[in-house]
Structure formats: C-alpha cells, structure tokens
C-alpha cells in the first residue's frame, strides 16, 4: 500500500512550530492496544448498581390499548419497572420539537419503540423480564417507504426550497433535457461501542451521568427536563466514545435519560447498555432519499438549469431532520455552477425509527445526486465524465451557490482536481480500461474521478461556539478541558497540541481530561466537522490569556518589556534570563497571579437567514477529490475496488497522521454506504438487517491494495486554528467516486444506454443494472 501523505503536506513555507503539524499518535493509542482505555461499560460499577433493559413495541403504527407488566414486575431480579407514568416532568427527549417521547403513552410510531424499562440486579435478568410483558396494540398499516409517506401526505417538518432564476424555463429551453428518479439508501452508524449510559444519584436530587454522547450539554438538559430539575443538578461526563459518526449526537440522550430516571426512582446507580440488535432497531440512521431531478444542458454538457426535489425519509419524528435535509440542499450543487436552479425538499414522516445525524449530515445525499446527474450528462453527450465535470465547475464570475454564497476558492477546486487527474494517471488508465473491456465479456472495469466541496459550519448559526477551561498548576502541569468530545477522531490530541504549542511545553505536561458539563457549560455537539476549529480556538483563547498574565508577571519581575518574554522548549526566556516553565508557574502562584482561564470562541463571518435563504451559512469550504477504479463481475454483480487515489484539502494540517486517518476512514465508511451496506425494512416496519450478520460494513479486504492518499497543500484563507481546515465529514463523499466507477463499469456493457443503478450498489443492484443494459430483467 502506498502512502505519500506527507510529501505534499510538508510543502510550503517554514514555520517554527513544535507540536502543530506533527503526526503525533492518538493520545489514547497505548491504552487502546492494551485494553486499558475506559469506556462507560468498563467503569467499575458502584456497589448495588442496577441494570436496565427496554420493552419495545411489536407494531409500527397504532395505539397501545393495554399493557400488563405484572409478570415483569415479579420476575427474578427485577427491582423496578418504569413507564411513562413514572416520569416526574416531561415525557420528551427530543432535541427541539417535542415529538420524541421517552416511553410510549398511547401512540405507537415505530416497531421497536420503547414502552417500558425493566430495572434489575443483572442485565441478563432485566433482558429476560422484558419478554414477560403483555402488550396489546391496535395496529394500523404503517408508512414505511417514501411513497407511503407521500400518499398519506405526512411530514415531520414543513417543505423548504430555495434557488435562483427560473429553473423550469431554463431546462425547457435547453438543447438537451434529462430527468430521473435516483434513490439513495440510508446507513447504520455501527459505532463499535453501542449506546450506553451510567447514572449515579447524588444528594438533593443531583445526578451524575456518564454517557457515550457527542452532546453532553443536551444530555444534561434533557435529563433535567424529564426529571423536572434545574440543569445545574445534572452533570454529564464523557471521556471517550467507541465511535459516534453522528449516531450519538441527539440519540445518545434516550439511554442517559432512562438511566437517570431509574437512578431517581430506585436511588441506586443504574446502567443501560443496549444490545447490538436493539441498538440497530432503536436508533436512527442516515436518511434515505429519493431525488427527483431534471436538468437542461447545452451541447457541451453544461448545465443551463437544474431542478431537484429531495424526498427524505425522516422516520417518525423531526429529530435533526431539519438540519440534515437543509445540508443536503446546500450540497445539491457540489462543485458545479448552475445558472438557474431550484432545490426543493420534503421531510417525510414514516413509521420507522427517527433518522438522525450521520457524518456528512445530508451533504452526501445531496452531493451524490448531482454526481449521478453528471454521469447521466456524460452518457447523454458521449463526453468523458471528468470532462463534463470540468465543464460545470465553479469559476470566477460563475461562483455563486444556489443559496447565494460566494465560492471564493474556485482555484483550489480546479487545482486539486487537475493535480489528481495527473497523479492518478486518469487519461491513460481510461484508455487502458476501454481496451480491457473490449476483450473481456464478463469482467468489466470502471473508473471515475469525482470532486468534493463541503461547507464548514453548523447551519444553525448559534451552534458555532465553543468553550475551554485551562488550568496551569503550580508544578507547571496543565489541565485541559473543553466542550468537544472524543469519539476516536483525535480531537483531544489536536487541542492538546494547540495548548502545548501556546505554552511552548512538552505534550506530556498537558493533561487531557474528560468532557464534562461541570467544567465547560452550554456546549455544542461535537459535530459538523467543527471540533478542532471551535475547541482548538477556545483552548487557545484560554491558554493565551494565562500566558499573557504569566508574561506580564515575568516582564515585571525581571524588568524587561513583555515582547522580550518568550515561551519555548519548556522554558520561559525573559530578556537575558531563562527559567523553566515549571518555575515560572510556581512564582506566579506565589505572586497571586491567576493561572486559570475559561476561553470562548465563536465563528466569525457567518450569517444565515433561512426564511429568506440568504447569507453565508459556511465559514469556508473544504475540498477533495478521489479517483477510483473497480472491477465488476457482470454475471453476479460482485465487484472490487482495485485502486483509489485521494487528494484532500485539510488546509494546513494540525496533525497530518490524524487527518489522514479521517480521510481514509471516511472514504471507506462512504464506500460501505454506497456498496455493501443495505438497510432492509419489512412491510410491517421491522428492520431485517439488525446486526453485523445481516448488515455488512467494509472489512479489511474491501480496502484497495493500491490506496494513495495525499494532502493538498493549501492554507485556509480564513483565520482558523493554525490555518487548518475541518476534516471529519468531507472525506465520506470521496466515496462517490466508487459508486460512479461502478456505474462506469456497467455502462461499458452498452454505452448507448444510461445505467439504472441506485445506491447502494450491492451485487444484486449491479446485476440488475447489467441485465437492464442487456435488455433483460433479473430472474
């Protein structure tokens, strides 16, 4: 496997930085490999801890007419059974809209919805006891598909649209018009650590909740809401998650609240860890979409007008669907200029679990749809798909998005794609593949190079803020805390690098500590790729304030001016003197100088008025491109990714090793979404792919043996933390190239026809498309 990641990253001017831009390993790496990193289920339970299991509905839609829990209550080990009647205040765990009950009262909205909780001395007893409930539901026919919801006209939020010009007229007057319906499947997060929370009751109704959550503040707030106590009585703590990917943004709350409620009722510590199958059934997924599109193009394949309607299957409640579908709309253009455009959306209500955040947050769906349209244009015009993309790229003067924001970095987009075209040897391989396919009747190869332009910032503007708390102790050790959570993405090490850099001290002096609402309040979720942008800045604000006080003290003590004080190499250089950082810390304490600071940061420049669809929702865009080559067995639809070349823009990297990890991991996760990961719901609303035995994420052999990943040298033009760019989500969409390469391979069977392939491109979907190009149906 070839990795030349750092060759490009190290280009550029010389900076005198000690920790920033270093490929430091994940701070928990040595603990991970020894099994010593503590996850919530690993915390040694306090004496008398009780365990919770949930009782679920067996119907997807209807009314709960009777519930007999008597056998549950008398089952071995059972201490308490909780229902909606046990909730002290509000039966509402929703992030915003009040439409997610903790427990069903009468209305049943999906199959697997929680009705009651069993609290027992062992987890096994609790799970067994749930089976003894007698539950009667007057069932109605559920809405499962987009079409079901459209027929009923049920949505979770109002329709929303924006655009520019008269897209319909532009399409109608174009020399060539294309249209279609494109379906995009959902995706299960499959974080390796399932959902889990442990609640420990304190005095006066206090509760301390350990939650595997990306959003401790929301857990705190919702626990307080449900229990009817002030936020200040609730502390939520998260040291690390075993993966999140958006699945623990709003949907870690329910388990934490259930545990807190059980702790309140029983007065004992209570833990809820979902079984993996329940985790699949009970937690929302990436939204699946139907995208109805129309495009008008000129003879060169340039878009004259584009209309797309995103029909998103949201599940039973709003959850985060508002933002998710908005972001799909914001990425309906991807990298392409659309003179006249209309982007519409429906947030459809189905009787399935409420779909939620998933890395990319709707962006991948919006972007895949336009990439599919690019391929359709290429098939219609006979042009190379990459040339069609070039023909439509944003360029200076034609660089306003459908939502009115200017794309300032058209040169980055263009330069990056051109570089990748060259380094991936796209043209020569295109010719080689055509020659191969001409002599290979069964095996067909395909190639695609697709770009990514991804907007960075929460589109809900108020979320673009962060806090950090830094203490320097008298021995010179530094306590670092901030509002961001660690889910494996390396946020903690990046922020620690920022603080160590600020003080000029060794990384070992900075003690990374667990995220807790007691230290940094009112935080945003660790989401929207914003973790290091926001928390890195907040931590620097805090550290630099302490440093300023230390500087002022040192300057005065040694009688020099402040600009003669320098922090580096674990020392402080004060004019002609130098002293260890530790010593200055001690002197400051003795001189009654405060060495503690709470830093706060808010992202500048952004404004977004959703009502008028105007403003600048994103601080900047992150760019990338990937070139994928696949082989397809046209007798079975089996396929393999043979080679992938990636060039990605992380600005100037804070930590290239961590960033490469995000890029590769995101690409492979995206590849899973578009190939083997298929969610299947039965007609009754039952999720049939509810475990890793039936839901297939990529394994090691799915990763191409020839995998070339590089960072594009490109300092962020905006003033971000050390001119870096966010990296969490954008790489997911690099995998669009895999999907497009698969369609390219199928297309070679009959270049006169479009490829009727939806996502995910499972072997079955691919074989169906192959048969269609051969003029046949499956079966």
């Amino acid at each position: 496997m070839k990795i030349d990641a750092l060759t490009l990253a190290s280009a550029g001017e010389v900076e005198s930085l000690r920790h920033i831009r270093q490929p430091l390993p994940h701070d928990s790496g040595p603990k991970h490999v020894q099994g010593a990193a503590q996850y919530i289920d690993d915390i040694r339970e306090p004496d008398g801890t009780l365990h919770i299991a949930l009782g679920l509905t067996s119907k997807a839609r209807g009314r709960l007419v009777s519930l007999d829990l008597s056998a549950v209550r008398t089952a071995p080990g059972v201490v308490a059974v909780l229902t909606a009647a046990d909730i002290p205040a509000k039966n509402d765990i929703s992030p915003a809209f009040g439409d997610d009950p903790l427990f069903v009262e009468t209305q049943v909205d999906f199959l697997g919805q929680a009705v009651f909780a069993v609290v027992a001395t062992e987890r096994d007893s609790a799970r067994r006891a749930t089976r003894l409930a007698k539950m009667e539901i007057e069932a109605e026919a559920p809405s499962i598909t987009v079409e079901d919801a459209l027929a009923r006209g049920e949505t979770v939020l109002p329709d929303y649209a924006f655009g520019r010009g008269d897209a319909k007229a532009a399409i109608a007057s174009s020399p060539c018009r294309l249209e279609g319906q494109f379906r995009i499947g959902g995706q299960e997060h499959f974080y390796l650590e399932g959902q889990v929370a442990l609640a420990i009751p304190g005095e006066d109704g206090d509760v301390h909740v350990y939650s595997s959550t990306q959003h401790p503040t929301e857990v705190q707030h919702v626990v307080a809401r449900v229990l009817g106590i002030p936020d200040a009585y609730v502390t939520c703590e998260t040291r690390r998650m075993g993966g999140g990917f958006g699945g623990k943004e709003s949907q870690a709350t329910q388990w934490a609240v259930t545990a807190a409620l059980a702790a309140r009722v029983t007065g004992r510590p209570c833990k809820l860890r979902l079984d993996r199958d329940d985790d699949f059934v009970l937690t929302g997924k990436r939204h699946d979409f139907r995208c109805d599109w129309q495009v008008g193009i000129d003879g060169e394949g340039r878009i004259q007008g584009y209309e797309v309607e995103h029909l998103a299957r949201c599940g039973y409640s709003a959850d985060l669907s508002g933002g998710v579908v908005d972001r799909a709309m914001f990425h309906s253009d991807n990298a392409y200029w659309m003179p006249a455009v209309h982007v519409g959306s429906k947030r459809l209500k189905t009787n399935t679990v409420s779909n939620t955040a998933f890395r990319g947050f709707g962006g991948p769906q919006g972007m895949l749809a336009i990439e599919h349209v690019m391929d359709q244009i290429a098939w219609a015009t006979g042009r190379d798909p990459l040339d069609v993309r070039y023909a439509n790229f944003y360029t200076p003067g034609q660089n306003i998005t459908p939502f009115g924001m200017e794309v300032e970095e058209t040169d980055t987009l263009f330069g990056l794609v051109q570089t990748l075209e060259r380094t991936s040897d796209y043209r020569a391989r295109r010719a080689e593949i055509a020659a191969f396919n001409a002599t290979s009747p069964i095996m067909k190869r395909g190639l695609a190079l697709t770009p990514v332009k991804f907007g960075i910032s929460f589109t809900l503007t108020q979320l673009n803020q962060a806090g950090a708390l830094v203490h320097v102790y008298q021995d010179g050790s530094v306590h670092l805390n901030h509002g961001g959570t660690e889910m494996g993405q390396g946020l903690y090490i990046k922020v620690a690098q920022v603080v160590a850099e600020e003080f000029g001290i060794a990384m070992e002096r900075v003690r990374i500590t667990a995220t807790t609402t007691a230290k940094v309040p009112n935080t945003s979720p660790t989401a929207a790729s914003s973790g290091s942008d926001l928390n890195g800045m907040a931590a620097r604000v805090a550290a630099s304030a302490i440093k300023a006080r230390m500087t002022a003290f040192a300057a005065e003590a040694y009688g020099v001016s402040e600009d003669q004080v320098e922090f580096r190499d674990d020392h402080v250089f004060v004019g002609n003197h130098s002293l260890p950082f530790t010593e200055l810390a001690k002197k400051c304490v003795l001189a009654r100088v405060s060495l503690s600071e709470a830093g706060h940061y808010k992202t500048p420049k952004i404004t977004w008025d959703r009502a008028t669809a105007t403003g600048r929702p994103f601080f900047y865009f992150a760019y990338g491109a990937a070139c994928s080559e696949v082989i397809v067995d046209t007798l079975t639809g089996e396929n393999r990714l043979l080679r992938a070349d990636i060039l990605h823009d992380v600005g100037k990297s804070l930590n290239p090793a961590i960033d490469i990890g995000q890029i590769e991991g995101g690409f492979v996760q995206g590849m899973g979404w578009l190939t083997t990961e298929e969610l299947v719901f039965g007609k009754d609303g039952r999720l049939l792919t509810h475990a890793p035995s039936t839901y297939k994420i990529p394994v090691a052999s799915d990763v191409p043996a020839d995998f070339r990943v590089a960072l594009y040298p490109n300092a962020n033009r905006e003033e971000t933390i050390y001119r870096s760019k966010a990296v969490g989500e954008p790489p997911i969409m690099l995998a669009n190239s895999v999907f497009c390469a698969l369609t390219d391979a199928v297309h070679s069977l009959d270049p006169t026809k479009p490829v009727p392939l939806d996502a995910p491109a499972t072997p079955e979907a691919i074989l169906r498309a192959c048969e269609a190009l051969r003029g046949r149906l499956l079966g």
Partner: protein
Amino acid sequence: MARDAIRFWRQGQVVEVSGFHPRTTLLDYLRLQKRQVGTKEGCAEGDCGACTVALGRVREGSVHYEPVNACILLLGQIDGAELVTVEDLAAGGPLHPVQSAMVASHGSQCGFCTPGIVMSLFSLYYEGERPVTREAVNDALAGNLCRCTGYRPIVDAALEACGGQPSDAFSIDHPGRAQSLTALNDAQDVFIRHEKGFFAAPASEASLAALYAEHSDATLVAGCTDVGLWITKGMAELEKIIWLGRVAGLDRIEDNAEALTLGATVTHAQAFSTLAAIDPDLGEIMRRFGSTQVRASGTVGGNIANGSPIGDLAPALIALGAGLELRRGDETRTIPLENFFIAYRRQDRAPGEYVRRVTVPELKANEHFRAYKVSKRFDEDISAAMGAFKFTLGGRHIADARIAFGGMAGTPKRASETEQTLVGLSLDEPATWGEALAAIGRDYQPMDDHRASAAYRATVARNLLFKALSETASGQTRATRIVGQREALEAAE
C-alpha cells in the same frame, strides 16, 4: 469419577473454575465475574471481533494460538487451553510487538475494536506464514470490524509486526507452556452440575453416547458458533449442555487415497488444508467461511448438524458425494449427506443421536469441481447463493453431474433436473447449454429475503452454472472471477 471443574492456564497459573452456569460465556466470565474489561462486547454474535481472545492449545507438541470470539464461546470450552487476553500481552511491561506497531501506525482511532484486533494480530504473529502477505493479514482480520480507520494503518501494523520470526514473552516460554497444557488434558470426563442442569465435557465416545442417551434433551455443542447466539440473542434457557470438544477421537482426520474422513469436532481451521487439497475451490470456500475466529471454534460436524439452509460447506460436500455417519448409543448408521437435510432446520437425527463423522470422496482424474460463494461482501458474510458443481467428463462431454446449492431452498439442495439435462452435453458447444441453464430455474424456487431477492438468486444460479461450464471447458478462471482465481491458488501451492 468425573472432574467437577474446568481447568485452564492463564498468565503462568492453572485456573480452576467450577459451579458456573452452563451457558456462561467466556466474555461474561471475563467482564462480569473477573471484571477484566479490556475485552469488549461489540455485537454478542461473533461477527465484529471486538471480544477476540486467543486460546493456546498443544498441537503436535507445540502451543498454537488461535483467535476466538469470547462472546459466543462458553466458559467451559476453554478447558485445557491457555487463555490470553489483551491485558496479558504487555502485562505492565513493554508493549507487545503487535501493540507497538498498532500505536506507531495510527491503527486505533476510537479504540473499541482495538483489543480484538490486537488479539487477532497476536495469533497471526505466531501462526502466520513468513513472510506474511497482505492477503494473509486480510484473512486474519476478516472477523474484526473497524468503523474508524479504514483498516489501512492496521494492515500496515500487521505487516510490520509480523514480518519476522516471533520473539516475545510467549515464544520464549513456549516449552514450559506445552508441558503445562499437556498436563491439563487428562482423560477424565468433566461434569459440572448447576441447579437444573449441567455443563458436561465427556472425554470418550462411550461417555458421550451414554450421557446423551440419558439426557437427550441436552444441547450438544461443538464450536458453539451458532448455539452461542441462541444464548446471547435468543436468551434460550439452556440448562444442560454437552460439549464435544474433549471427546477423544472425534477430532480425527483420516486421509487416504479414496476419501477424506472428518470427525465431528474437527474445526474448520483444522479441516482447511485437507479440504483445500481436494480442490482449490473448496479451499477458497473455507477461506471465506465465517472468519478466522469462527473457523477456529466452529466445526465441520456442527455446521452440518445444525442444518443451516445455506451452510456453505454442506452444498460443496453434497456435490462431492459426501456421506454422513450418525451414532446413537452403540448404533451407527451412514447416509448420503443430502438425505440428512429434510426441511428448513429439520434434520434426519433421532433424539440422542449425534453426527459422528463425514466422509468426502476424493476427486478422480476425470472429475472437475467448481464452487462459488456469492454474498454482499466477499469476506465474513452469509451467502445469498452458494453453488457447487462436480462434472464427470468423458472426453469433452459431461458423463455425470452433481450440483448442490445453498441459499436456494429451505435446505442445501441438489439440482436434480439440471444434473440429468447436463448429461451428454459437449463442453465445446455453449450453444447447447441453454436447456440445462433453463432447468436450474425449475430445480429451485428461491425466496426473497434481506440478503437477496428470489429473482437475483435465480439469475445468479443460472449464471454460476454457465460459469462452471465455461471454466471447465477452458480450464481458465482469470476472465471469470474476481476472487479465488484457481490459477493463483494453484500457483500458491
């Protein structure tokens, strides 16, 4: 007199455990009873590998470490083995080579899958051939899901750590280990009584036959890779469990020129090379069977006995003409393997009767075998369809055919009409194959499920027959396969 405790070896000590509930899993023993929480539960069904631990057993005089899924392994099954968990590798000292390579390669992000990955690599560190190849690493990791890294750095770490000969605390201490482990493996029956039931591990067929005749309501367990899910997912109230893993002789492999006989407790890992020697395609099916962990625990006999409608091994063995020997008390009988499968999850097995061994005829010079596993994902997936073909040739014509499919009916099933239609066809006249290709559509009425639609399965079955005929005609597979090309497999031998 039966032993009333299991004994295993850990960190240089013999550990005895008795009085446990028969269905206690190894993972629950570690996490809940010992409070050793380095080993993680990711799925509790043997599919994600987060719970992987290594078991050392003496084979041919030396200790071999195999990775197993602790979540679906019964505690009793580690009797006689050395147990190595992720906490044991460094044990407070310097990191093990696979651990330090994982840190240096940035092989962990969220870290939750990492203990299991480390343990799979620990086994590869000992058992992998040198130099270790990327393909061997992929196979070693097929049962370990990672959702963060995209695997590239983990594969790099494996190639780095497993590049040379093993030299760590475990390899240095090997001779003493082998003796200690050998000493644990006595010829005593194990019988651990618990309230309403027991965990029993008879040491001889006589003990097994007697015990099972007396308790025909007991659950027989060999590898527990399926029964484990009845416990963790089905919450089955299993009270009486008889583990076959200590029965002397049931793990015997007999290989003569005519046939291969595999005892019921031969694991997939143990059967791998002898089955691959019959035909490279059979080896390829075994390579993709479950995962390294599942193959280390799961047995050929168990895979047959539990009657999976897919059970990749059964269709392949049926096509080869395998026979099955069953025993109850002192009586044994032998039947063609295909007759064992009566209906969905219903087998021709009387109360108290157990699968004793399976006999697989070797291929003759004019017999050509092809097998294909089609699934959503190449590795560690249950087949949408699994087809196996044996063509007996007379010159360039088909004199006889045996075809069996998994995933196409409620049981593994032969394609009787297709087999007859094929007789007399010329390999050199593809235009005449149409009737046989149509016949396979009448032999099977597959179903729609979450793995595939009936329409897909029907098309694939037809296309696999076409593929098998084309490949037999040409002797080539490069132009017809993505994985398991026979030219590469044969070159590797």
